[in-house]
């Protein structure tokens, strides 16, 4: 696995002001980023962009984060991509529901850049370790 290529992050978020800033912040942090305004667009971009990680809003006007998660898990090329839910819902039940549905992490709004980057890096490292173990046999 090449360490040279910047990690790719896809941001699925319907609130444009938030989406655009997340994309810019992550770009400043050295990631290659794309943004999508809903789940369907996000799945479509994921097939071509091959992100290393997906940040996905839960409550969106056009299909929620769980639908996007389902669609991503149904395709071979996207099923193993770590997904971090980003949501304004802070109740324990919402977080549990997300994790039970297969989210890899859950960040509540508003978040700091450190939290965002920390969560992304943790998932990338975890995935790299798994891939290494897998390739070693």
């Amino acid at each position, binding site marked *: 696995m090449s360490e040279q290529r910047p990690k790719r992050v896809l941001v699925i978020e319907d*609130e444009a002001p*938030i989406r655009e800033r997340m994309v810019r912040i992550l770009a400043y942090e050295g990631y290659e980023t794309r943004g999508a305004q809903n789940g369907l667009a996000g799945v479509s971009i994921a097939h071509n962009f091959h992100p290393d990680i997906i940040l996905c809003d839960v409550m969106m*006007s056009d299909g929620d984060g769980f639908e996007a998660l389902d669609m991503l898990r149904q395709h071979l090329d996207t099923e193993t991509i770590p997904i971090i839910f980003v949501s304004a819902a802070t109740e324990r039940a919402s977080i549990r529901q997300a994790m039970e549905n297969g989210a890899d992490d859950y960040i509540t709004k508003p978040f700091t850049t450190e939290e965002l980057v920390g969560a992304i890096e943790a998932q990338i490292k975890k995935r790299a370790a798994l891939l290494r173990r897998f390739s070693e046999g």
Partner: protein
Amino acid sequence: MKDVSVSWRQPAAAGPNLSVPVVLLLMVSTVMMAVLTFVAARSLDRSAKASAQQVAESLLLQARRDLAKVARDAAQSDSVRTYAEGSLDPEWAERHIGDQLDQIFGTSSSWIIDARGRTMFGHLGREITHVDVFEVIPSGLGQLLEQARTTPVRVPTSVDGLLLLNGTVNVAAAAAVPPLNLSSRTSPYERAVLVLTTPLDQKYLDLLESVYFMSAVEISGEGARNGDPAIQLRDPGGEPLGWLVLKISAPGTVLLEQVWPAVASAFASMLLLAGLFVRRVERARLQRVRLEQTLDRERDLRQMKARFVNMVSHEIRTPLTTIRAATDLLARYYQQLSPEERENELRAIQHEIRVMTTLVDDVLAIGRTEGEEFKLHRQPMDLQAMTTEIWAELDRAHGRRHELKLAADPATHQVSLDPTLLRPILTNILANAIKFSPEGTPIEVDLKVNGERVDIRVTDHGIGIPADQRDTVFAPFNRATNVGAVSGTGLGLTITKQSVERHGGTLQLDSEEGKGTEILVRLPLAA
């Protein structure tokens, strides 16, 4: 906000395991039992009266037959035949016929009517009487004598009947007395007649009373009184002599007198029991209703709280996220940002702060609604200008996705309204129309002055409001179920309605899900 937890369970069963229907059934059974007892008692009374009458008639007949038999037997006896023959000689008769006859027969009076039928010798009281039969003949005796005279003298026979003697009803029997020497042609007479009478006296009445249910009997000039059974007494000629009135102590009535208190007591107990049960059941029902009302209120409050928490969660965290992202951009990458980008971030922060301030103001406005007196401040204002200004602001904030079709009456340039109330009304109605309509669809706004009021009609072609939620959308933090993830506080319509009402106006909502919504606000132009 503290979490309110309310658990619902059925109230404990009130009282023993009996129900009102069971008590009512028992009461109905008691009443039916009472009615059956009453019917049976009446029937028993009727039957007792009939029986008493039969017994009385039978005993009367028996008394007559007994006396008739005595008379028949006596008339054949030598002693009576001797007296009869002796009666031809008044002097002899006075010496020999007297109370001896009564002693023989045990009757109160006895006569021997001589063969010539002109005189009789008998005993009335203790005096020997020698009277002319036809002068003293009591009513009915004539018929009795006539019958006795016409019977064959050789065959022992007698007739009987009732007579009124000295105001007293008597049983009477008459028998033909043959001459001593029947075969002798020298017999001075063909026959005499023996008459025995005995009053239908206390002895007979006592006998009747001893039988069956009769408490008293009396001979009366009047017939059945008070429903008492009675037998009419007549002499042989058919003349009425009076009534034998039978006073019976009706057994059914006696039975009822004994049963009624028990039945009444049982019924009263049942009534009391039923009353207690009804009271308890009603009290339990009221408690339950009150509990349900409290629970409904609690549920409404919990729902409102949940809606508030959801709203705060989304509507505050979303602008906060933008603010934080913008400040992070400015703080961390200031040097990499162009002056224009920095300016943009500051404007975004300012915008989101305005959004949050409005939100806080809305929540506080709703919180202040209750019990606060509001004073209307009318002033001349341009409704049309305010509408276009608010529209422009909202349209820009939402990405200019709709076309405004404004039809405004020129008179709306100068109206007397309270702008502090009008602004939230227009802002919320127009914002809803924009937020819940597909991009490109027109929003129609019609402003009209109609006499002393102004009509503001806003029509969109958006998602509409489900029919069952057209009232609930006005509740604080309540949003229609079809809004999806379109952001909102659930306060817009609440504030709109509150502002319209404070302005003394009305709000009509006409909506069809999937087709669109029309809101008509009517505000009076003068108080």
